[in-house]
């Protein structure tokens, strides 16, 4: 495949993921609204909001890093997308996964986070920093069960390649990691709650107590970039879990259904449970999820 063709396929994949992300976001918001006995937004609202944000002409800047924050953030999301194989066995939708295995993706997550944190930091708003410090703090322990789960998978499949892990799960639902390695899956799913940061782990954004901070400091085009990233990132993180634990996707429909349910799982929990304080959430991941992760490794190693 020529590099031009490759790029076109990648862009197509990105287009699909972006649009699915926008739709999924709208659907989720709608569902959450209905749970709260509200009507919620229209399903096509994101397609209206995004052009609106991008076309806002008035904007301010607190400096270079502030300006680059959203660039880092979106690069982080798109980067994970670029390193992620989407459809099992498809040479068209494996993106640039040849450049690195799951470790690259795990660590590239921080690229966007750090950049955005720095951008918001230059904004100088104290609440931004509060949010960031909470987010980073929570993320440290969120990653622990996930790391254990990934190690358990690496032992199980003898590879760190996402493509190979997804390929190994083909041939029936019983081949999914969910069934072959339920402990690792459980650990990872719990840690995923922290990654998507819905309740009980949403003190990071604290939508009620901190109505200001990055989302208000970053307005207009910046917010458009952030929204774009949000749409891509939510789907692509779900794709990661899908590839690792839920058999990957043989086609786009499968991808859409699986990612929806994976993401919905975190939303569902969030709707049901109240919010943790930060010291509670930090420690929470070091309890049951950690034990599950350890057991997952013991289970595979012995």
């Amino acid at each position, binding site marked *: 495949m020529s590099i031009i063709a490759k790029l076109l396929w990648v862009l197509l994949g990105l287009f699909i993921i972006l649009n699915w992300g926008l739709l999924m976001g709208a659907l989720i918001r709608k569902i959450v609204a209905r749970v709260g006995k509200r009507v919620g937004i229209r399903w096509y609202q994101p397609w209206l909001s995004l052009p609106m944000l991008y076309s806002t002409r008035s904007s301010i800047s607190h400096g270079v890093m502030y300006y680059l924050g959203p660039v880092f953030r979106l690069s982080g999301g798109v980067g994970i997308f670029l390193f992620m194989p989407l459809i099992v066995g498809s040479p068209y939708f494996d993106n640039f996964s040849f450049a690195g295995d799951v470790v*690259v993706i795990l660590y590239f997550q921080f690229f966007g986070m750090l950049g955005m944190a720095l951008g918001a930091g230059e904004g100088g708003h*104290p609440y931004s920093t509060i949010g960031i410090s909470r987010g980073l703090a929570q993320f440290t322990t969120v990653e622990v069960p996930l790391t254990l789960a990934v190690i358990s998978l690496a032992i199980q499949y003898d590879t760190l390649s996402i493509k190979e892990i997804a390929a190994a799960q083909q041939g029936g639902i019983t081949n999914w990691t969910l069934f072959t390695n339920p402990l690792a899956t459980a650990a990872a799913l719990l840690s995923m709650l922290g990654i998507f940061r819905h309740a009980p782990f949403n003190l990071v954004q604290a939508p009620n107590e901190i109505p200001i901070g990055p989302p208000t400091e970053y307005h207009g085009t910046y917010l458009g970039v952030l929204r774009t990233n949000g749409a891509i990132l939510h789907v692509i993180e779900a794709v990661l879990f899908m590839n690792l634990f839920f058999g990957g996707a043989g086609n786009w429909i499968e991808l859409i259904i699986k990612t929806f349910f994976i993401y919905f799982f975190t939303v569902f929990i969030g709707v049901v449970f109240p919010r943790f304080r930060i010291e509670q959430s930090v420690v929470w991941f070091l309890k049951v999820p950690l034990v599950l992760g350890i057991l997952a490794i013991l289970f595979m190693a012995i």
Partner: protein
Amino acid sequence: MVTPIFIIATGLGLAFALGFIPKKHINLTGILSFLGLAFMTFISGQWLFSYLGNNELSQFIFTAGARPPFAIALKMGQAEAMITLLINVVGLLSAVFLYDKLKQIGRNAFIIYLVLIMALNVIVMTRDLFNLFVFLEITSIATAGLMLLDSNLKTLSAGFKYLLATSLIAGVFLIGTIFIYSFGGSLFIDDLTAIGMAPLKAVSVAVFLLMISIILELKPFPANGWGLDVYQTANPGISSVISGGTATAMLFALYKIMPLSTMQSYDILIWVGLITFLGSNLMGLKQSDARRLLGYSSIGQIGLMISIIGMKPYIQFDIQIILLAILITHLMAKAGFFWLTGIVGNTDISKWGMIRKHPEMLFLMGTFVFALIGFPPFPSFFGKWQLIMELSSSGHFLWIGLILLGSLIEAVYLFRWLGYAIKKETATQSSIDIRPHKTLPTIIFAVFLYGVGYLASFWFPMGGSINWLPLAFIAILFALDFLPAWIKNIISIAGLSYYAYQIIPEQEGLYLIFAFIFLIGGILTLIPGFTNKGKRIGFYPVAMMMFVGMGMLIEAQSMLEFFFGWELMTAGSYFLIIRGHRSMPHALSYMLFSLGGAYLIFAAFGIAFAGSGNFLMSGLSTMGGLGGIAYTLLAIGFMTKTASLGLHIWLPGAHAEAESDVSPMVSAILLKAGVLGLIITFMAMGGPNNEYTTLPYVLGWLGAITALVGNLAAAFQEDAKRLLAYSSIGQLGYILFALAMMTHLGWLTGIGYSLSHFAYKAILFMGIGAVVLRLKTHNMFEMGGMIKKMPFTFIAVLMGIITLAGIPPLIGFAGKWLFYNAIIEKGWYFQGTIIFFAGIIAFLYCFRILYAVFLGQLKDEHRNVKEAPIWYLIPQYLLLLSIMIFSAKPEWIFQPLGSMLAPIFPQGQLVWNEGGTAFSDIGYWNGSWVMYIIGIMFVMIFAWLFIQNRKPKKVKQFNIVYAGEKPERPETTHMAYNMYSGYNKALGFITANGITTFWNWISEHVTAMGDSLRKIYSGNGQTYVFHIILFVIIVYLFSNGGF
């Protein structure tokens, strides 16, 4: 040749003749006395010279022309010539030092002084027991007389107690002599030895009495209260004669009579000596009086020498040479030190800060302290080295332990004192007495110490292979210290470059990597020094000392050279660290941990020598049966430098309080010396298939926990440099963990980390150092907004942080990727998870330092801050360039590294394809592609935003969404203090100060023990006499197992 009888004739004759010179011609009296002393010195010197040229037999001089027992015999052999020379030199120089005092008191003082020195000469030369007794008495009377030069109540009382004690001791000696004569029929030592006295109990008691009385003269612990009072109250010039001259003569007397005794007696010497060494140093811990402290140190050192005399039967090597090396160091350093107390005048060691107004005096003090502890290049370094090696090969590890422990304790108080002198603020404005006749003797002995150190290196095996050229360079730098800093910086960089040019091309394998870090790193970190105005007294020689020491680690073929380099590096880095504003306690704890570590390494080298029979570094791989212990000692020793958990408490203070351009030296570079040591240890253990599996396993866990605790503690720091310092602890934990895996990938990770840590930590410390330089504060909550003022520094620090955090696409990620592969391959899943956890915790401090220093709210008082000096930016950007290059082309570094490791670890190598993708057994990664993809994507997204949002309006700092209010001040809006409070609440307990508490507990209890030991010194003469009697009885009982 002038016959040695003239020593006595001169001393005695002149003392007699001086009485005829009228009192008003005191200058003539003085000149004659000096001439006399000089002539005595000349006689000893010419005899020594004649012995050095050829192996002449010792000369006996029979007084009255008859053989013993009808006359007294004197001996002038090589040893006697050496010892009398030393005594006479001390005598002469002390007389110079005391000149105004002696003159003030009058001719009688000169007379007594001459008699004392003469008597000491006779004690050395005489072979007649009764004659020895007579001169012991003369010595003690003369000493007591001289003490009264300072006539006050204290000296009077001390002098009286001294007389009381020494008369008793002489009495004991006399009783022994009488019995010997009655059984042996002679007083001539050589005859007595030759005939071999009857194996009667009475004979052995007699010999015991002789021996114990000379031991008592040497003031053994605890029967030495009378001696301590002397040291404390006498004039420092006299104390230097007592410590340097009298003790030397007594030691020789002891050495001389030992052939009369049995094997058992040698053991007495060993134990009395070792207990004295240990006990005396313990008691020094709480001492604050300079002269009494030196007294403790003196008695300790003499105890060590007593024990070495006792070790003669257990040592293959010529004991005289070992003794001489330690004796010369003690004599010169202690005499010099006593003189120095006279120069400074104040006897409270905490007031010694006044000395630093005269850096040359401080230099002398440093010389004496380092010589006494046995650092290179002083003779005692070589003496102790050989001693430990010999004891090790005869299997006497307990003695080794006691000697090293005693030395460490001695280091505690001497370095505390040195620290006071270098750093402690002192209120007293009084100046010190630097008249030439006071300083000249001190300077002469300091210079001698260096010179004799050089000579001494040739007395011992492998000592000749030490490369003295770099040390000469350091000496030149000391001499050029009057020049402006920038000139010395150029000279230093040039010198180090030349050294690098000499060393680096010869290296291969892992040594090449470390040579590069040590020397190229050294050059880079010297560049910021160009910002220093003025002279920067003392900086360059000690910086070079550290780098040269590290170079020697690379060059070392033998363990001796390695240890020489190690100690040199420690000494240099100590002085670098203590230069910081609040560094005094941190430098001390650095030194103590370093020394403790060095002694463990020393002991392990001893075991290696015992196992392999040679001094080569390769001997480390043939340890014999004690391999497990030896490698553990080595690992712990080296971990004091890498600051692994438990041994890390010195690091944060030492690195954080150091000067801005010193922190990168000690953090980015110096720590790697410990890594090199660990690598050497692991290689010696036998690579991948070694038999010592427990040690690496334990070290693996230790490394992982160190990483966790270090990184977590870093996240909670308010001080930017402390944050980086704790981060170093964490990063070095990674390296320890990686190396302990003992696999190809593990080592690739560890060495890759060593390199990248060198680069990014140097950038970070230089960047933050420059900020600290500009803002004059370490506290991050007092900073903020520096991105606008120091953008270039920000970019460098940002890149350094991204590398540290291991975020793709920069090279730091290689470490993370390798870790995953290595850990899964090795099967260390749980330790590995801790490592990853630690890695993520690192984000907390990574963000914190970037945000709190460079982002957030700019403070009003910082609105005019300038960008970092260009000299700070140049090395940062050079390092950054290398990071960028290797990030784009990781195969350029990891492929050669892999081939360097292949001979050691052939299994589990990475496979690189032509496109630059690395394949492990389970994963793959292409650094170049990751770089290109991220780079292009970033640029495209930036372009997209830029097209959409071309001209954003620049707003002021406080233009933020703040509920319609205006924030009050930048200080209250900068969210930086106690940033991770929630996290601290959740996990802060992990960083609780348990380890610091533990070490404080140890130090408090040891000090308290020393303090309670001091209570036996009541100051009462009768008690002291009782001590002496009790001492004789107890030693006798112990040596005989009862009556």
